[in-house]
């Protein structure tokens, strides 16, 4: 196993290695946009077709929890950016600190999300599990509300999965960082995980208004 900061066999120079990693990350994020894109398109079309039902279903989401989570996630992007900066200027202790903070904020987000999911479960708003929008709701209402919640769970679930993966990456980075691996010369992993983290953040910035705010004035 080669140590970090060393040149992998297939590359000629460290610069080439860094360029490849960064380009690879950007391309990966491009594929992610299209991956979420399919969901956003499905959402948009159904939102257009069943506008009033989607608005009604959206109002049952907990705006406070959603808003809190938005703030948490923006905060985590800030700490992540600080971690990248610390790595670039070589403040090794700060890198570890900011990475841990980011991880903590990420966990808070996931915890709040779990509470929201639990609420939905109690309200029978989980599609496929005895879904019932309201007592005595007719079949069409139920079907269309279920579409909203399918998309809600699909989109936030996929987002949460990305958060979990991001948290895993952060744990790995923290271990590396505690071993003092990141230097101003070598910090590509911090930068790339940073890019990923910001991407996941931006997805939420779109999800929040689409799902929570579509019909609140």
């Amino acid at each position: 196993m080669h140590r970090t900061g060393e040149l992998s066999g297939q590359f000629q120079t460290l610069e080439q290695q860094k360029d490849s990693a960064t380009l690879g990350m950007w391309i990966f994020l491009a594929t992610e946009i299209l991956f979420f894109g399919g969901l956003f398109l499905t959402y948009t079309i159904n939102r257009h077709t069943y506008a009033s039902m989607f608005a009604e279903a959206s109002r049952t989401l907990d705006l406070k929890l959603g808003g809190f989570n938005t703030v948490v996630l923006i905060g985590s992007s800030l700490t992540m950016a600080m971690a990248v900066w610390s790595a670039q200027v070589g403040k090794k202790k700060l890198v570890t600190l900011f990475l841990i903070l980011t991880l903590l904020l990420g966990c808070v987000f996931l915890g709040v999300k779990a509470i929201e999911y639990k609420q939905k479960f109690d309200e029978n708003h989980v599609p496929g599990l005895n879904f019932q929008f309201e007592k005595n709701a007719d079949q069409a209402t139920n079907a269309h509300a279920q579409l909203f919640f399918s998309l809600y769970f699909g989109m936030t679930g996929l987002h949460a999965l990305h958060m979990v993966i991001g948290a895993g990456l952060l744990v790995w980075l923290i271990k590396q960082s505690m071993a003092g691996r990141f230097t101003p010369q070598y910090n590509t992993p911090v930068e790339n995980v940073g890019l990923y983290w910001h991407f996941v953040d931006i997805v939420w910035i779109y999800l929040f208004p689409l799902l929570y705010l579509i019909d609140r004035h």
Partner: protein
Amino acid sequence: MSATMSTTPPQSPGYQLPKEHYLNATYGIRSWLLTTDHKRIALLYLASVTFFFFVGGIFATMIRIHLLTPQGYLVTPETYNKLFTMHGVAMIFFFLIPSIPAVLGNFLIPLMIGAKDVAFPKLNLLSWYIYITGGCFVLYSFATGGLDTGWTFYTPLSSVYSNSAVTPAILGIFINGFSSILTGLNFVVTIHTMRAPGMTWFRLPLFVWAQYSTSIIFILGTPVIAITLLLAGLERMFHLGFFNPALGGDPILFQHLFWFYSHPAVYIMILPAMGVVSEIIPTFARKPIFGYTFIAASSIAIAVIGFFVWAHHMFLTGESTYAALAFSLLSYLVAIPSAVKVFNWTSTLYKGSISYDTPMLYALGFIGLFLIGGLTGLFLACLGLDIHIHDTYFVVAHFHYIMVGGAVMGYVGGLHFWWPKITGKIYPEFLARLAAVILFIGFNLTFFPQFILGYLGMPRRYHDYPPEFQVLNVMSTAGASILALGYLLPMLYLTWSMRYGKVAGPNPWPATGLEWRTPSPPPTENFEVTPVVNWEPYDYKNRPDLGLATPTAPTLAPAHGDD
């Protein structure tokens, strides 16, 4: 290395295999399953796509036997539906899409651009494991009864009504998608950052351009099919309603999302084959390719425009007339870069020094079959005509001309062309030429009658057909048996040649690419010294190292020599 390195003709007899090369550098099953060498990964893919080709081929054989008689006595309707579905799934997702990119692309891209490996070798191995995992899910679906939705998985048939093993197959294809995405990512990064000194973009072999375009489609298209199939799978598992009209969903939305990937996927199959042909033709005509820039640019054009034609699969779903007009026009637009390639290949032959070597036969066969496949695509893009021939055997014939006549001919031709590089051995030439001719004849006999069947009105996916269609179906089945022979032959002699073939030497044809400037088989690190490129692609005139005559200007210095 420079262009003036060697003066002895490389064909001189008595070649020995190099003492150590990528095949014998390490031994044991672990050294293969844990390899990060792009060449070994290519061989892992070669073995696995060949396996899926056989699986799909067996299904195809049963389909053709069943269709010998109008009522079809071989299998029940249910089984027949499963056969053509599994044929499509195995062939498209697990053979055609990975074939040229993952086998030849993996093996050749680093060699062609003068790199030691791809940019992310571990990711490359991971892609293969993802492919195998996806393959296992699909095989599990086949083994537990198979699925009968058609490879297109149209909802609500696939998500609600079908009683077959749809879910594992959908999961398998979903998983396999990530293999494509990671392969595409790896190739794009490799081509951007790993090129050897002097290997400028316009010195890249056209095969690399084709792979680059293909990778763009992998990257931008595959995520969409992944999420679409995931939604269809969730709909099936949890009775959700994304695409089920009974629950407020829209089955047409599924078709849009599905074809947004699956039409460009056709270009995933054909573009790399075009790349192979663009390598073979100049080599066996021993002259630069005609219109290099136009061929390279047309690959990119096809990849880009290919993303905006998907709804031509949906002219008769009730989509708006305006949408149909736009998508028809764009479909005609994408035909032009393909035509440009055909014209350029043909012109390359003019005043060449043409030989009958097997790869050349495949390349010329490719042009002929692709021509028919491409031209009949114009029939289907034609709105007025599509009303009649949509979803008939005309479509079946058309896409087999593109995918089998085009992509598979390119793949098999490429395997022959680079076989000496991959194994260090030469295959038996006579048998190989024979197989190429048999394939060409068998293919046309199998699929040409299907154009007529389609125009006569035989719909596709029929296990039972009116008796007036029998003559043409019998012809088609007869052709299929010849075709099967044509596939078995190369399988046998190529395997045989790995052990008993004549030693090829580093550059048997000779060809001009970088991959031919290293021993056959290459060492694990590809090149002993990082090569420096100071010649233009396919330039025979200024390459005395190839040991060929230069009749027009006997002793000319390299035009772009900078050493």
